[in-house]
């Protein structure tokens, strides 16, 4: 292009415009070049005064609405850790990647964070599918993942710390509570059709039939994203169960609860217990559609303890007064703190040493917003289950709190 004289006549507007069009290509090429640069050191991305971690959640796509809270909480925790002096005298630097609600992308970005950026830990994933996609990468590259979502269990990887509840922690105490408080004998199970609801329902059914001596009068699964619950609602009317036990996820929830209400099924006539609705979902469903129904979680924003009051205040200061905090958001907040405790105990960022320190069963957080948690050698947390009753304003009133429950990802007799 230097020898303009060569074909000056033809350098009209079209060509300039075309050259502009080539700009994005240039940007891409330039960024490709930077790929070739070798990583800064052979080990992890740890210098004398910084340590780098990764955050890997969906910022785009259908899961973004759910995962935003989690990554906000992780950033808040990291900010607070940095303000209190960092970890082993080092400030934490964050590299954020977008999983884009696409499971293969989670695997690709995990590999990028571990191999290219050599991060010391990753806080991320939300759905089981994204975790399952990323897991082989973490095991192969010996990374460390803090996974915040309540999930189906049946997994215990050396390279993952699970900061949410596994299925039995969430389910069993809630069922006991509803059987005792409401005298429930018959249950209708409904969930979205994928691994987490199916496993959860399997555990629930065994517990209802074998322990509570109750009866499951119906079990139904709807495809993810389905919005037609008419036939299920008709069956429920026919069977008249004491309790509807629900694990409907994502956007389907909105249709499910609105159609229930439209069919005249409300909390005055029917007990409904769900294991898939947190404050985040209620934002979409609307508190008035849920009023009086129950959720079992380990955390509710309305919990009244000094840890939680401080956490909610700090969260709203950082992310705005409108933000709500759900169960997973709180569990995500625990991740960096648990990592800090394990690293300080191990005295190094080395993954093997941090995992070993975590597995000794004495890492605890007395400052957790949910109250108190302790890390079990099986990589899951000791935590309490809580039943919350939803109110019109989208907050829940905690009506039951269990004792600390031991995590049991491979429950005997429930498989």
């Amino acid at each position, binding site marked *: 292009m230097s020898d303009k004289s060569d074909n000056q006549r033809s350098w009209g507007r079209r060509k300039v415009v075309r050259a502009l*069009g080539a700009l994005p290509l240039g940007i891409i090429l330039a960024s490709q070049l930077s790929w070739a640069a070798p990583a800064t050191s052979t080990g992890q991305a740890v210098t004398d005064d910084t340590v780098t971690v990764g955050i890997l959640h969906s910022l785009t796509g259908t899961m973004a609405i759910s995962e935003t809270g989690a990554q906000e909480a992780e950033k808040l925790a990291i900010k607070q850790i940095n303000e209190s002096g960092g970890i082993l005298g080092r400030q934490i630097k964050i590299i954020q990647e977008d999983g884009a609600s696409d499971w*293969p992308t989670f695997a690709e970005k995990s590999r990028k964070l571990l191999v290219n950026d050599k991060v010391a830990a990753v806080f991320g994933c939300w759905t089981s599918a994204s975790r399952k996609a990323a897991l082989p990468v973490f095991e192969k590259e010996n990374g460390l993942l803090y996974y915040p979502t309540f999930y189906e269990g049946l997994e215990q990887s050396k390279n993952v710390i699970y900061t949410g509840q596994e299925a039995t922690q969430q389910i069993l105490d809630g069922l006991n509570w509803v059987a005792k408080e409401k005298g429930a004998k018959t249950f209708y199970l409904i969930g979205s*059709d994928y691994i987490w609801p199916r496993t959860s329902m399997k555990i629930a059914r065994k517990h209802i039939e074998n322990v509570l001596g109750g009866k499951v009068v119906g079990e139904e699964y709807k495809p993810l994203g389905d919005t037609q619950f008419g036939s299920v609602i008709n069956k429920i009317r026919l069977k008249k169960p004491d309790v509807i036990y629900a694990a409907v996820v994502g956007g389907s929830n909105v249709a499910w609860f609105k159609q229930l209400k439209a069919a005249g099924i409300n909390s005055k006539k029917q007990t409904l217990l769900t294991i898939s609705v947190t404050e985040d979902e209620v934002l979409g469903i609307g508190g008035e559609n849920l009023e009086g129904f129950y959720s079992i979680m380990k955390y509710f924003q309305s919990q009244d303890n000094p840890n939680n009051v401080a956490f909610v205040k700090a969260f709203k200061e950082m992310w705005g007064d409108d933000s709500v905090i759900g169960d997973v958001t709180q569990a995500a907040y625990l991740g960096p703190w648990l990592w800090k405790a394990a690293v300080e105990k191990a005295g190094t960022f080395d993954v093997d040493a941090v995992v070993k320190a975590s597995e000794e069963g004495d890492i605890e957080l007395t400052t957790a917003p949910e109250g108190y948690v302790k890390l079990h050698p099986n990589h899951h947390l000791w935590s309490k289950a809580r039943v919350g009753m939803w109110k019109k304003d989208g907050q829940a009133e905690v009506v039951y709190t269990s004792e600390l429950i031991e995590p049991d990802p491979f429950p005997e007799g429930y498989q």
Partner: protein
Amino acid sequence: MSFVYEKLFGDKKGLIGFCILAALILVVFPVMLDSFRLNLVGKYLTYAFAAVSLVLLWGYGGTLSLGQGIFFGIGGYAMAMFLKLEASSPENTAIQSTPGIPDFMDWNQITELPLFWMPFHSFSFTLFAVLVVPTIFAYIIGAAMFKRRVGGVYFAIITQVVSVILTVLIVGQQGLTGGINGITDLRTLNGWDITSDSAKTLFYFINCFLLLAVIIASRFILTSKFGRILLAMRDKEDRVRFSGYDVANFKIFIFCFAAMISAIGGAMFTLQVGFMSPSFVGIVPSIEMVIFAAIGGRMSLIGAVYGTLLINFGKTAFSESFPELWLFLMGGLFIAVVMFFPNGLAGLWEDYGHHLTKRLDFIKNLFSKSKSAADAIELKGSKS
């Protein structure tokens, strides 16, 4: 030699383009990129199989398929089933209620390996299935559609519907297919660790050679008499029919061939990425494959590869640098390419390629003939 030139590469220009591509993926990338990035490029290149198949089907055949993900997925799943069975040996799965079956079956209370999984214990059957199952499936769809003279937008919609049906089927039958999680945690191939860097590098080269072979085979089809009939059908289908050709059979053939190519890509994808999930079967990936072909230039086999690479490089680079804005940048990239290079990247080469050769001539003149620059310009001006 003329056979090689004309039948396999098109012409001299085609040969040059082919050599540049081969040099790029076989030499430049492996030298420039570390193993992680090379593996990423390997993943992108598996999508290029589908893009190349769309050049045949859509660019030359005039039949837009919005369901190439179906065949990519079938190929990928076939390979994943074999690898999963190997990973689910009774020793590896001792913790399950039923050892020896894939973990997701155990979670779904399945106690026996389903019949259709049985043959996938054999590697040779798997390779056979990767090639043949999608072809048969394409034959069924193709015969049902083309024999009834369903084409154009209706065909596109039907392929899209089939891809949705297949996704729903896979997600719904999670005990048999792994559901929305897909088939994950694949580690070895006949005992050989496929997650190691050396295995990934080897797969990258196998992938490249297969892709180049597919391009040559496609070029052979396009330069043959069949290719001309294909073009004729695209431009005036009735005229070809009235000339006595059975249009439907030609369309079925190219659809089956395109399906087979896509399936090879799918199988290579599973090998390199280590899992397969329904997110490669549905509408979105299928449309993305069309975008790859469109960006590359839908009349250019080699352009399709560049289109795939550009879009995926862009995706990765933008989302790494601007995780919150990258979708907008991708949108901008699409708009820019479509607005300014309506014929795709291949069109860019067509438009500017000769400038490059001219400039080379110009420089040659400058040096070899020691003429003044002004003379040279005049000389070139008179040439063109």
